[in-house]
């Protein structure tokens, strides 16, 4: 990857990560975990952990990241870490956070620790959305990270509410009638932002500077914050493990996955893509989308392109409407 590709835009602020040289070099995740070679979510975990300016407490939903990092007695976590179940990491975190408040008030804890939640798209978009909504509404201080690999990968590539239109999964196969997944990806950012939380942002593992800046911004808020991180899965998306970062980069450069933030209700695109690459550049290097390039799925390809355009326009509209508000 060229250094040009990772050049970031963004306002100067204390949260701004300008160079890799200033981030924490002491590893917060140990090697020896059992993720697939070239795992996108593990890249997300490492970038987020290294971006934090202090050791966070991590609450992990059931899913790939949890399973591969915690096979007893080998844990990869060099920060305090807890896993309870799939659907409830936001609720567990509510308890951690509220308990810390009480302990601080009693003088039994010096200060509250930052809490970072790692949950996949299934644990966030689908089964975990009730607990997430409750925790956001109650205003617990936490950074909730959804690492999005756009399907249930831990159980073997089943569709989720985050799977994009047209994508193949084992429960959204393409065939004579189906074009792959028949429904659009859920707008999780819209749902989360509607709670009126102080900060929500999308990020991609390909754009570490943007991602790490957003982590620091999020952790600076005294309230719930949300990071939607694009984290390709080479096994589930069917591409070569060496291309994980490249696939994520193309998702951004084709406007398939726009990088933006919602801060105090204001939408802002953090990486304007003025000249998008053709969507085919993103689709063609992944087995899950390759069928869309066949003539019989042309209509589906057009639908997906329309959805990508609509999403970009919607976010731009929101940015224009909330600018200066």
């Amino acid at each position, binding site marked *: 990857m060229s250094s040009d590709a990772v050049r970031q835009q963004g306002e100067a602020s204390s949260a701004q990560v300008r160079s890799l040289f200033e981030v924490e070099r002491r590893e917060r995740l140990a090697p020896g975990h059992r993720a697939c070679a070239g795992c996108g979510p593990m890249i997300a975990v490492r970038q987020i952990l290294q971006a934090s300016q202090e050791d966070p407490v991590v609450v992990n939903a059931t899913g790939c990241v949890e399973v591969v990092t915690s096979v007893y007695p080998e844990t990869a976590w060099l920060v305090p870490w807890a896993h*309870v*179940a799939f659907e409830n990491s936001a*609720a567990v975190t*509510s*308890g951690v956070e*509220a*308990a*810390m408040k009480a302990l601080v008030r009693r003088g039994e804890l010096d200060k509250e620790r930052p809490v970072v939640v790692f949950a996949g798209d299934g644990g966030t978009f689908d089964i975990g959305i009730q*607990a997430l909504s409750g925790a956001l509404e109650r205003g617990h201080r936490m950074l909730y990270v959804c690492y999005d690999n756009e399907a249930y990968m831990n159980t073997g590539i089943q569709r989720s509410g985050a799977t994009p239109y047209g994508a193949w999964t084992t429960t959204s196969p393409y065939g004579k009638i189906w074009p792959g997944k028949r429904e659009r990806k859920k707008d999780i950012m819209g749902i989360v932002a509607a709670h009126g939380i102080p900060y929500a942002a999308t990020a991609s593992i390909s754009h570490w500077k943007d991602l790490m800046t957003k982590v620091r911004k999020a952790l600076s808020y005294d309230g719930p914050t949300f990071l939607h991180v694009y984290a390709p899965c080479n096994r589930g998306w069917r591409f070569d493990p060496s291309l994980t970062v490249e696939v994520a980069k193309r998702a951004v450069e084709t406007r398939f996955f726009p990088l933006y933030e919602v801060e105090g209700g204001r939408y802002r695109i953090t990486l304007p893509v003025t000249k998008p690459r053709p969507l085919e550049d993103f689709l063609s290097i992944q087995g899950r989308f390759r069928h869309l390039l066949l003539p019989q799925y042309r209509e589906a390809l057009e639908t997906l392109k329309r959805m990508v355009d609509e999403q970009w326009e919607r976010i731009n509209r929101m940015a224009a409407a909330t600018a200066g508000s």
Partner: protein
Amino acid sequence: MMEVQQRVEMKKVFITGDDAVAHAARQSRVDLVAAYPITPQTVIVERIADFAANGEFEGEFVAVESEHSAMSACIGGALTGARVFTATASQGLAFMHEMLYAASGLRLPMVMAVANRALNSPLNIHNDHSDIMGSRDSGWILLFAENAEEAYDRVIQGFRISEAVNLPVAVNLDGFTLTHSAEVVNMLSDEAVGAFVGRPPRRNTLLDKEPKSFGMMALPDTYQFFKEDQQRAIEGSRQAILAVEREYGELSNRKYGPIKAFRAEDADVVMIMLGSYAGTARAAVEATRSEGIRAGVVSLGWYRPFPADELLRAVEGASTLLVMDRSVSYGAIAHPLASDVMAALYRAGIRKRVVNVAYGLGGRWFTEDDARRLFRYASKPGPDFESFFYYGGESE
């Protein structure tokens, strides 16, 4: 159980079981209450919210969006070493079922009040034990209270027990029958309870300086070790529970234990029960005896760990055990309590007539006359084992 000279100042109040439990949680210096409303437990949560609103509750009150999240938040809180409490009932307990196993598997101390109630369908908001019996194998210590004061006492004791053995404790009190009936409760002072419960030890938590991982994944090569460890922990909790009960007894002059035996020593027919109808049965014993039937009652204060030895000792001389179940184990030979009692008998190599009665389901009344009728029935010769549903509630 009462009277005698008291070591500490008591305040006599006329309150419901729910109020009593809320006071116990408040006085026990709880750090976190995460709860969701479900009849008949709701009042506990409302009272704690009242306390919090008035600065009388030192902890955090988190009004979560479901029982599943209530238990999840309690688990999160307990992982920091904080003292946590919740309350639920019925569908709510069923909804948090998954998390009950997480709490016990993680060996987390916490106390939960369960306002026992029937399960849907059909919908019924009244008292029986279907809810907790569905979760009886979730690895929690299960205690049963027979009145509001006992519920209050057992909640306070529960914190000490759970923190001593690293297991969660559920204090069961009959929904409505106890939660919504007001009665005389002798409350200890805030100071006495505070001194009794102290502060949680906060060993090995998420907030430790050295990072620790909690709730890892165990493959087939290690999972069973975790399960054996839990079984040993709950078996080993007996001494700790007894010790806490003894110490609390010295403080309050209220002595509990694994079982409460009433006129059982010379009884021929002993009714074995869980929960608040034991009092109704005891009230019927004298009249039953006047008919020439040597009746007795044994009620269980502990259900897990199961007090088999104490129970068998108490019913040694009886020929017939009338085991009263307020829930159904569909398709099983016997309902939950009777299954346990019969397993205890078998282990000890004892054979007695066992009459297993499913009764009081969905709040169906049980009166002294019903107890007499059942004593009379069981005192007559019959098969070694029989099981039937009994519909009570009518006077003679």
